[in-house]
């Protein structure tokens, strides 16, 4: 694996079964600090399960999970708390607390840490403005569109400036314009805040824009790991099947970016 010397996420030999079905089977994965790693793979291959294992929402049946130097797979609550302090999670369905306004949702992590109200207000306003939603703070999740909810979910995930952000299909189901906006947020989290990102995505265009590296999940492990350029040229069957859905993959290529 060509991961840098200091991966912030390191999964080794991770296995997960549900009943008789093996979902993950010896998954190895290392994500270098300050990069965006995109996990692609057919539906139902265990991408969400992988993110849940990284965040300790699911315990692996075997293998080790290390987040920023903390081993979390053993189920120690202290280790989990410590790892989660530095972790943001953008849920597929946003998972905003439905009886709280957008503003209160973004404020929640700050409030629970006892940050003074004045400071909370300023931070939340800034975060909402960052995702282009400065004026919807008082609306409730049910009054927002799916794309708006995702952006509020993003604002909440990064409000404590985590060093690692996990994104579960951040652009699935969004229109092309909103997809671009969310992609820019994912890129901005890395470039402006120095956060590492692990992005689960179905969307080739979006993946090529945000990724430093792309890992293809197949058969319970990362079958192949590629840069966006290599991805476009790959002959791997799963990669080809993703590219086959793309009308003109060359046009969606991102501007060249030097890998760290």
């Amino acid at each position: 694996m060509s991961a840098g010397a200091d991966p912030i996420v390191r999964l080794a030999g991770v296995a997960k079964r549900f009943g008789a079905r093996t979902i993950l089977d010896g998954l190895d994965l290392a994500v270098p600090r300050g990069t965006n790693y995109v996990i692609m793979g057919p539906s139902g291959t265990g991408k969400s399960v992988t993110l849940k294992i990284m965040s300790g929402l699911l315990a692996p049946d075997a293998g080790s999970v290390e987040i920023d130097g903390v081993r979390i797979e053993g189920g120690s609550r202290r280790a989990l708390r410590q790892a989660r302090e530095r972790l943001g999670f953008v849920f597929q369905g946003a998972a905003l607390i439905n009886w709280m306004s957008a503003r209160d949702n973004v404020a929640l992590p700050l409030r629970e840490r006892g940050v003074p109200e004045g400071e909370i207000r300023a931070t939340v306003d800034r975060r909402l403005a960052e995702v282009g939603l400065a004026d919807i703070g008082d609306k409730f999740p049910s009054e927002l569109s799916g794309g708006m909810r995702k952006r509020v979910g993003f604002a909440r995930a990064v409000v404590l400036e985590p060093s690692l952000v996990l994104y579960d299909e951040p652009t699935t189901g969004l229109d092309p314009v909103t997809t671009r906006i969310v992609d820019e947020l994912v890129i901005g989290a890395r470039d402006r805040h120095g956060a590492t990102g692990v992005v689960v995505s179905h969307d080739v265009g979006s993946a090529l824009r945000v990724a430093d590296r792309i890992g293809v999940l197949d058969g319970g492990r990362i079958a192949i790991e590629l840069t966006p350029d290599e991805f476009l040229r790959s002959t791997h069957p799963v990669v080809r099947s993703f590219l086959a859905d793309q009308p003109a993959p060359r046009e969606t290529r991102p501007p060249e970016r030097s890998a760290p």
Partner: protein
Amino acid sequence: MSARRPSPLTSVADGLEHAGRTFLLLVLALAHAALPRRPLRALGRLVEQLHVQLVKSLLVVSVVGAFMGMILALQSGEALRRYGAEGQLPSIVAASMAREMGPFVTAIILAATVGAAIAAELGTMRVSEEIDALELMNIDPVPFLVTPRIVALGIAAVLLTVLVDVVGVVGGALVAHAHFGISVPEFLTASRDALSEPRMLGVLSKDLYSGLVKALVFGLMVGGLACSAGLRAEGGALGVGRAVRSSVVASVVLTLVVGYVITWVFWVVLA
């Protein structure tokens, strides 16, 4: 999710496991209530929940309570008249309301209104990953969601039981006046006297104690069952529906069973 019917043994095991988890959740929630990390914030959440719960149940509890007292008066009055013992009517209505019907009616209504709403609310939060989101923010769902709901239900159950007792006795008084020629003030005075009789611990009568203890236990139990069912929901909207049903069914059944046990303790063990 498999459509296979679970064997009866599995269902029993599941039921016991659910009961155990619910009990643990209840203990954990009450421990957080006793030693809140942020007392002011915890109090705010509690008051908010109490307000919501009372608003949801006040009207229906009053109506049902009044009719309960009226039915009791009519039924018992007819029976007593045969022996010329209508004079006993106030104390029978008052004691029945205070000991059994008040807490029972309150618990059943709370299970169907507030308990169902809590199971649906927490179930929705579970299946839409909101509970996961809280955990990832290092926010423990127990003090954040469960404790205020359970404690509020305990308090609400006691307050509403007192209300049901009062409207029940008043309802009984109206029926007694209309059918059995007992004046309303006479009925109320006789009820009050009946409810102040064998004192326990010097403050309240045994009738009231047993009823209020029941109310408190029922309230906490309904809250625990609702929260536990909601938090364990899985499988989308259908799963939320299942959580609501299981919470209401378990609450109603356990209200009767636990009610029997408490009655037995007060009137047989402590006789």
